[in-house]
């Protein structure tokens, strides 16, 4: 039995549900938005960890699950949760229930895509770069609140980009001009700058030991938002060289992320960089454009003990 945990309607979530259904792999959906019909009990004794998950009228022994697809969102962010006051007893009850469910997933021995502890490396991009560096080159990176340091960094490396240092989604922008007035806010919030590289983006999805690589052609700095600039993005499935493929697998294992989306970049000189490893990749965009069977691979992975 596979547990799909998150909010249905989300692209990757739906593709995996379809793939499980197609492969006739039994699964149950824990729709976070229907938290009022979810019940959860859990025990830790010196002999065992056990528990029951109840969704509507169906109860499941926690040991039944072979795999969990974890795309859960913060309970307080759910529209239905906003109907309760955060101080109310019911809000506290439901929030605690999800918190404990997440904690159970953390100590569970079945296959999980992915555990929150492993996903947390992405909460700090510069920290994650330290973990990536043994496997791929990473772009020169500066986090600063000091315009003089920024100018020196730009003189050393040429054009720069800036983006969020945390996992908050941000559009990657080029820093064309250093405008002192615009940069005043970095005084109180150190900001991440990186050398702007020229070359080609690749997105590599890893599922266990399977690799799905895609070459991305776009005129935009951030291909995810190319439509906003009137540009096109083309996705083409590709085979990576053995060396690069092996490094991707090693990186995924090192980060304990059996499912991940690795953002690679090949420079015009042929050097491979890694920008980031996404621990909860929105792979549906790539699967829908390229036909790569990523969801089927995930379904298969989760069905095995």
């Amino acid at each position, binding site marked *: 039995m596979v547990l799909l945990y998150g909010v249905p309607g989300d692209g990757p979530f739906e593709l995996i549900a379809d793939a499980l259904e197609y492969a006739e792999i039994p699964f149950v959906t824990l729709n976070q938005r229907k938290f009022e019909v979810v019940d*959860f*009990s*859990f*025990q*830790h*004794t*010196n002999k065992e*960890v056990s*528990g029951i998950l109840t969704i509507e009228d169906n109860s499941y022994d926690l040991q039944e699950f072979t795999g969990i697809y974890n795309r859960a969102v913060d309970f307080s962010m759910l529209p239905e949760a906003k109907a309760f006051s955060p101080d109310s007893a019911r809000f506290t*009850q439901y929030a*605690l*229930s999800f918190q*404990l469910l997440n*904690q*159970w997933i*953390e*100590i569970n021995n079945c296959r999980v895509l992915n555990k929150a*502890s492993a*996903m*947390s*490396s*992405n*909460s*700090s*991009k*510069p*920290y*994650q*770069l*330290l973990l990536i*560096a043994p496997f791929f*080159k*990473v772009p*020169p*990176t*500066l*986090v*600063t*609140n*000091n315009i003089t*340091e920024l100018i020196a*960094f730009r003189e050393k490396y040429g054009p720069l980009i800036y983006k*969020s*240092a*945390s*996992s*908050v989604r941000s559009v990657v922008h080029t820093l064309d001009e250093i405008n002192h007035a615009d940069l005043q*806010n970095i005084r*109180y*919030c*150190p*900001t*991440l700058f990186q050398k702007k590289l020229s070359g080609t983006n690749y997105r590599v999805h890893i599922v266990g030991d399977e690799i799905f690589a895609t070459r991305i052609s776009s005129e935009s700095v951030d291909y995810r938002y190319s439509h906003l600039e009137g540009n096109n993005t083309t996705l083409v499935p590709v085979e990576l060289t053995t060396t690069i493929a092996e490094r991707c697998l090693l990186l995924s294992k090192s980060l304990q992320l059996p499912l991940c989306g690795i953002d690679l970049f090949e420079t015009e000189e042929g050097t491979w960089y890694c920008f980031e490893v996404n621990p909860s990749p929105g792979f549906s965009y790539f699967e829908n454009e390229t036909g790569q069977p990523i969801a089927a691979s995930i379904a298969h992975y989760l069905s095995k003990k």
Partner: protein
Amino acid sequence: MTCIFLNTNDKAGTWLYGALKKKGVDNLVMIAAEELVYAQQFSCGMEDDGSYFSIRLQNGLEITNQSVHTTVNRINFLPEAITSRFKPSDRSYVTQEQMATFTFLFNILPGQLFNTSSGRGLNGQYRSQWEWLQLAKQAGLTTIEMAYENYQLYQTTLTEVNPLVPVLYFNGKCFGRSIINNDHLYTCCQQLGALSTDRIIEMYFRVVNQTLLFTGASTVPAFQEAGDDFINELKELL
């Protein structure tokens, strides 16, 4: 220079500073989280030749990866006050950016005695009590029992008749009165320390029917039972 990074009102961190001073450790400074967050100049990063940082505090002290050779990190949260400089809609973003920046900084500090940051916390790896109990069980310790049912948490009943017994784990060794002449407990605590992968943790036990039951652990020790042996161990590494 040796730096102890700590939160304001961290009595155990201040005690540690005093204990090291008494042992004759010179060139030792305490730096509060506020001083880092409100630094006049703050830069950190990584280039082909490695990572670096350069911070000038409001009091004029400059700390860099070259001037600092050893560090102790006890900061496990950042002051929120700085976000008040931003409009309300930006505050959550600023908080997350600060956390991301300091997660990186606390990972690249030179000569870190304890504890390196991770994605799970600025100071070691934050774990739920369930996770600590699970690790403790793997390490061979007897633990309290816990359950969650009908939106209620239950655990082995503990009262004041069950005294708290801390054990400090640092650098592969254990410190505390309870482990003296108790080889089995020492080995299990050592094993739990290794499983945690953090350099320092403080484990907490309660005495129930003359048995020590593990209840949890922290990556920010209170040093309740850290005596001379621990300070000497630490001093040797400076």
